């Protein structure tokens, strides 16, 4: 087991190095001078001011020097300071991560709650109208971009029914849980739809396979009810790949909420990333991108390790 962990961690470090280098390279290749964004167009008339800011920010240093300096600082947790707001990037992330994490968690939770019965129903009624209906519904949910779902939800629940706010975020710490949930439920629902579709297809296909196992036939021959068999004997073995994909998608959602956060004006990591891109705030772009990539890689590694714990064949392999 120790060897497995060591191997995974070595891969993790290598992946992170590649991610940071690629991120740094791509942001360096972005057209547009960050100094323009800092000063505004009206201010570029003074070359001395521009030169001073470039020098202060180290923008004139060779690319590799900048990368190595940045990497050295990042290794100690210092992702730098925003060109525009002067705020530390780690502070920016730490303030916004709970919001994005809550959204991702709620989306996954809602998706799982919906996906399991839908997937089970499709598997249990395989080939029948119930299966066809749920499959069609899942296909629709998978096909519609989540921002379209978000726009629809705003129109229905905010403008027409007036039940929920259309935008922004009430914080648990200042507004309480109920008010927080009022602002979280629409964006989380928009995110959940696609996840639900993916999860339910996975549950359905896994459960169809499970239901053909000998022990299920044995259980049926004992006269156990279908409901009991489905919940007690079929669901657990059908959930292994679901657990894996939940972990992976949770990591992906940490960086995948950009559009929904922007649509609903949710002050999460993605919303800040979009603003940083518009502002050419390269340090923030780098910091957040690397953070998201790191989170994704770390979560995947944890999932891999858990897999190894759960399944001895992987551990030995």
């Amino acid at each position, binding site marked *: 087991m120790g060897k497995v962990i060591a191997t995974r961690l070595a891969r993790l470090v290598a992946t992170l190095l590649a991610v940071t280098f690629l991120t740094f390279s791509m942001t360096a290749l972005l057209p547009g001078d960050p100094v323009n964004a800092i000063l505004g167009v009206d201010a*570029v008339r*003074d070359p001395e001011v521009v030169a001073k800011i470039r020098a202060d920010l180290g923008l004139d240093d060779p690319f590799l020097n900048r990368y190595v300096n940045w990497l050295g600082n990042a290794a100690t947790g210092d992702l730098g300071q925003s060109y525009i707001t*002067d*705020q530390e990037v780690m502070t920016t992330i730490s303030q916004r991560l709970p919001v994005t994490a809550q959204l991702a968690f709620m989306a996954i939770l809602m998706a799982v709650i919906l996906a399991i019965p839908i997937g089970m129903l499709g598997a249990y009624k395989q080939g029948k109208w119930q299966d066809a209906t749920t499959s069609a519904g899942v296909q629709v949910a998978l096909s519609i971009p989540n921002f379209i779902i978000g726009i629809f939800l705003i*129109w229905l629940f905010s403008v027409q029914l*007036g039940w929920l*706010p259309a935008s922004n975020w009430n914080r648990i710490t200042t507004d309480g849980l109920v008010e927080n949930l009022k602002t979280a439920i629409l964006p989380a629902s928009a995110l959940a739809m696609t996840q639900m579709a993916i999860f339910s297809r996975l549950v359905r296909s896994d459960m169809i396979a499970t239901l053909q196992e000998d022990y299920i036939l044995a259980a049926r021959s004992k006269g156990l009810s279908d409901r009991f068999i489905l919940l007690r004997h079929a669901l657990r073995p059908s959930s292994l790949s679901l657990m894996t994909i939940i972990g992976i998608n949770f990591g992906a959602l940490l960086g995948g909420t950009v559009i929904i956060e922007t649509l609903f004006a949710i002050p999460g990591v993605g919303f800040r990333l*979009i603003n940083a891109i518009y*502002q050419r705030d390269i340090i923030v772009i780098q910091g957040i991108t690397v953070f998201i990539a790191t989170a994704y890689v770390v979560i995947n590694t944890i999932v891999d390790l858990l897999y190894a714990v759960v399944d001895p064949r992987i551990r030995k392999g």
Partner: protein
Amino acid sequence: MRRKGLYRSVAFLAIAGLIAGACGGDDDSAPADTPEETSEEAESPAEEPAEEPAVEAGDEAEGDVDTAIEEEESAVAYGGSISVGVEAEATGLRPWEDTCSSPCYNMMIAVFDKLVEMDVNGNYVPYLAESLTSNEDFTVWTMTLRSDVTFHNGVELSAQSISDMFPIQQAGAAGSSAIAAANLVSVEATGDLEVTYTLSEGGSAFPATLSRAPVGMVFEPAAAADSEGFSMAPVGTGPFVIDARDLDNETTFVRNDEYWGTDPDGNALPYLDSISFRPIPDEGTRLDALLSGTVNAMQTLRQGTIRDARNARDDDGADITLYEFQGNNVGGGMYNVLVPPFDDVRVRRALTHMNSQEQVIEALGGTGISLPGTQWFSPDSPWWSEKVAEAWPKFDFDGGVAILTEYVNDPERSDGKAVGEPIDVELSCPPDPTLIASMQVVEQLYTASGLVNVTMTNYDQQTHIGIALGGENGFVGNHQQHCWRWSSDDDPSVNLNPALAPPTAEIAEAIGLPGVVSPLNFSNWFSPTAFQAAVAATKTDDFATRYGLYESIMLEFADQVPVYYSGHTATAIGVESNILGLNSWHVPSGDLGIGFPNAEGRWAEVFIDS
């Protein structure tokens, strides 16, 4: 001779019927801030009724955006809180440092006062200042501050405060630029409340500098020592005090109980208990937020959103009021005149004739909202000229084709192509859907002529600007036909002078002005006569003279066509219909303020009608 109330005199003879009429203002509402200024103005020959036919307003288009600026008739009420949806988060709340656009300005104006404001007639008038006068050549400006004004942290405002702000502004990204543009070299406290500004080169439009955030917004200099902390907890003298700042979510200000300002009836301001601003970048969501009551007010700078809000109000019965404003800011673009074939005026004229403003405005969603542009001033502006409007090359496809054919068949054509070959045009706009639609209109028209090969490109805003700026090639830029916006409701010199100065070092040296290079001359068009006119306009406060100079520049634009226009930028602030007072805020003299240009509200006199 000392000139008092200089800029007010400038505009005094201006605008009379025009803006006042167009905006529902009052011709008699000229500022009377101090008795001596008033009397000085009365003696000024510039104040003679200007009988300037050229300052008459143009006809208003059907569906024109034009909310009346007028006294509110409902009884004001104290109390209540409102939230305002703005299109983006403020990058910061440091006037000297942060490049401030409309959303940020809405927040800053809640917490900071400006030394000078613009009134309904377009005059720059004292605000936190009590008076502002200059010497004859406009190099020394003397300002007297209001007394008994305190900052939010209890520190009393004094001339020394203004003087102490100066080094901070000099070191700031936004401030240093504004200071350089104004040729401001020193700010001294010459009395307890008297401040002396010294300029290296006189400028009659200096009050405009004091009306803008980087130099004109007053902050507590000692509090600014912690720059980042100040951005989160700004300290000004304004009507509201920062209460909480949750970046990218909500910034809340509460009533400043010690505020110095009153309404014309002597009631203490502000009326509201608190106001919060929420950045909602998506236009549709922001409007939905207003319609659903998530926010009580919202701003927009998009014609399409104004159209949707009108539909919601008129067709769906939404209980909202739209405060719409047609500003000088005008969309369109430019030709890089240092790049063939745009170095030939025939090409520029031809392409402009072949560009249908009406269709472009329709593609932009501005039909019935946005007035077609012919100059840097909207018909509501005192600077608008009918002569220029008539001179501007109108849509005339066949005429354009004829001119372009002449160029294409010219053996000496500047692009070096063979006779008869189409010209190449790279048409570039930021990747906004409506801009792309407008590009497609232009591309189809050009292509239909058979004389133009059009390549369309889209780069994000920062890249788009960078391409036109051309920092790496001596500010020539790498653009050809490039989408752009022109002008603002500031004094014309603010935008025009840098756009007319020599664009490159070579040109500056050639005309004997080495070092006078403006990277902000994006079209790279240089005309000695236009440049001299622009400079001359900053050496006088006589409106008629200035008007004539700016008209001559605009006429040269119409003839040489370095830039072209689509429509003027309509903006709006939408509010729930029980929120009043946005169009009836006042300057300290009791006259009405300018209103809400660029969707920038003044919130001190806003109240909730109970």
